[in-house]
């Protein structure tokens, strides 16, 4: 029974990855490239020791974005606003970090908490609109993402909160003092962010809260059926609002590792598009903290390996297309699997009822 359950859990993501590999292979064949040697190239380059550290660092950010999305999904909330939440959060965290000079044990928590608070605050706008005004969080978050970009670009101008670097024209926030830098671990010739510990902690807390607390139970119940949860005394609208804020707080952590251990400031070079990635990873990992971790590493791996393709005459955009197909194929295969399972269950129930009726009939005829 357990083996069967694992089979049904894994079949969807595996099918999705296979489908997308086939799709990319077809594109590669059009381009007269050998799919097998291309994939081999991706794998051998991606697993080079020098790249693994960079991939792990990227995994930390993706993982946090994935968990932020997953906690929303548990409540049927589609937090497409992770992008805006994360960028606004890391921007303000970098500003706060750059303008304070505290000892490390205060400075680092200050920056991290600022990021979480800003992320939560920005997300709670969407949460408020959802609960009080019944506005889809997808629409309001798309708008909020665009507004966040505008606010950051406005505030990043020299003379407001940003400065121009001494050697470059890139706008950035002032550099965070050394006491706010987070140490890194040297391995394989790379620098691994210690912020990974926070990411792991977030994963563990996520699992505990969801599975071992009343709050987590209420959250899952509200996600399964808003009306039923409400009828049984859960303050469902409040749960929606809180979940959105928590999701935003975790989203706020997404960029902190990079900021504290590498760039030590915020600039427009910080990547965009974490929302879509986070949602994709949560879907791929089935909102499971370990599943999301694998998915995040896979994503980071693909993206790190992409540039090698260009050097071999294959456009690296196929990685983007592969990601798109993986998302679509994952969701589609989950839906198909869900329906197959449902049909099986119905059959099971149906046949059980028939045997019940039959046994009754035989009993009655015996009497």
């Amino acid at each position, binding site marked *: 029974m357990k083996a069967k359950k694992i089979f049904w859990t894994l079949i969807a993501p595996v099918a999705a990855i296979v489908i997308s590999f086939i799709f990319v292979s077809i594109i590669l064949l059009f381009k007269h490239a050998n799919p097998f040697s291309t994939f081999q190239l991706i794998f051998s380059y991606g697993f080079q020791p020098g790249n693994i550290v960079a991939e792990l660092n990227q995994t930390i950010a993706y993982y946090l974005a994935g968990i932020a999305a997953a906690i929303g999904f548990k409540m049927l909330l589609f937090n*497409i606003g992770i992008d805006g939440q994360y960028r606004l959060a890391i921007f303000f965290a970098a500003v706060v970090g750059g303008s304070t000079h505290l000892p490390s044990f205060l400075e680092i928590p200050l920056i991290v908490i600022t990021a979480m608070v800003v992320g939560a605050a920005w997300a709670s706008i969407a949460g408020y609109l959802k609960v009080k*005004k019944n506005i889809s969080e*997808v*629409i309001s978050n798309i708008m909020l993402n665009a507004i966040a970009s*505008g606010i950051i670009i406005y505030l990043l101008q020299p003379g407001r909160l940003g400065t121009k670097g001494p050697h470059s024209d890139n706008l950035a926030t002032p550099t965070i003092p050394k006491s706010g830098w987070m140490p890194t671990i040297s391995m394989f010739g790379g620098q691994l962010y210690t912020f990974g510990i926070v990411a792991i902690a977030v994963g563990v807390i996520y699992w505990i809260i969801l599975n071992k607390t009343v709050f987590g139970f209420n959250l899952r119940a509200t996600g399964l059926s808003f009306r039923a949860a409400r009828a049984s005394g859960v303050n469902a609208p409040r749960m929606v609002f809180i979940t959105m804020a928590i999701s935003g707080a975790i989203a706020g952590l997404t960029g902190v590792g990079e900021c504290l251990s590498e760039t030590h400031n915020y600039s427009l070079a910080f990547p965009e598009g974490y929302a879509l990635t986070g949602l994709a990873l949560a879907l791929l990992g089935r909102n499971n903290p370990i599943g999301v971790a694998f998915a995040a590493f896979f994503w980071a791996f693909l993206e790190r390996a992409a540039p090698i393709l260009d050097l071999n005459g294959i456009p690296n955009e196929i990685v983007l297309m592969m990601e798109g197909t993986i*998302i679509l194929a994952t*969701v589609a295969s989950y*839906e198909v699997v869900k329906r197959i399972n449902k049909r099986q269950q119905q059959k099971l129930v149906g046949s059980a009822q028939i045997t019940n009726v039959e046994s009754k009939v035989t009993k009655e005829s015996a009497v």
Partner: protein
Amino acid sequence: MSNLKTNPIVRILRSPSRTALAWVGMIVLISLVREFTGVNDITSAGAMEATIRFTIPILMAALGGLWAERSGIINIGLEGFMIFGTWFGAWFGFLFGPWIGLLSALLAGGIIALLHAFLTVRIGIDQAVSGLAINLLAAGSARYLAGVFFTGRPNGSIQVSPPINSISQFTVHGLSPFLSHIAEKHILIISDVAGILAGIVTGVNWVSLMLFLLLPFSAWILWHTKYGLRMRFCGENPVAAESLGINVYRTRFIAVCVSGAIAALGGAYLAIVSTGNYLEGQTNGRGYIGLAAVIFGNWQPSGILAGSFLFGLTDALRVRQSTSVHALLILVVVLTAAYGLTKIKKKDWKGLITNFVISGLVLAYFLINSRVPDEFVTFFPYLTTLIVLAFLSQRLRPPAMAGAPYHKGEESGV
């Protein structure tokens, strides 16, 4: 229900004559603003031309959104379809001329939309996931295809396509110089109307005209044909529609395909008419703005025209002269104050005060600053939509089942 009847905005949008009156009122207001601030560019022929150029792509995206959402499918992939449209329009436009470019964008958009339709209608996956994945797929594909097809061509690279032959334009002779002449005199209202008309009749692009006509055409199909009635029915209550013998799957498939095709046309317009070649990232979020225009316009054709026009206008004014946007703040001041006054009749004192405070704050901003920062203008459409959503959400009437998956033979859950 009483809200719907008493709301002045809804009442105005209800009847065509009142809608026309509202547009006239807007023109009078804008011309007063121009007179008061002395920013003559607001109603110049050039600004109007630019506004049309910026409005059409947004309008196409919004129309695409309207078709899909009225049938019950939310199409967040509009941006992606526009991106596909820019590439197909540019490549086939370069090979066979602009008209073939538009046509192939139309077809490509419709065919790619089959994917969105299949995933959301038949399989029933989350419509937002599908739409977002299509956006990702479109960005990747366009870059990939541009790299394969455009590089090595004259003036072509992975980011730019070779130039497309421009589409013939026509100017209404006699009328255009005459109107422009009046417009330059800056007489209150008369010059403004002349300027706007001059912008409309000067250098008219056949494509702009044809694409614009898609709006009344769609409105006619959706509200005055049997097919349109069925389609809107599928968006409101698919279970009931199915029980009356309407094929919900097929209806939604068609609607989503039309949606993708129209959005792709908007993208092709950007490549062929606005710039004359494909530029990477030239859609620049217009698909999302189109989505916003649908909400802003309360899922009504006249409303989405107003929304697209407003967003197109701010875009155009930003590009031409940012002081114009600053002048338009006065418009916001007057309109919020006027909306506040309508609350007196309902004795909604809180609403009155809120509107007056907003109006006062905007006025204060207008008086203190001499221009609006460009960064704010870029997110103006998004902010407007968010505010409209927040304040008028009770009065908005989206299709009841837009976004909810529907499986034949099952009650669709909310």
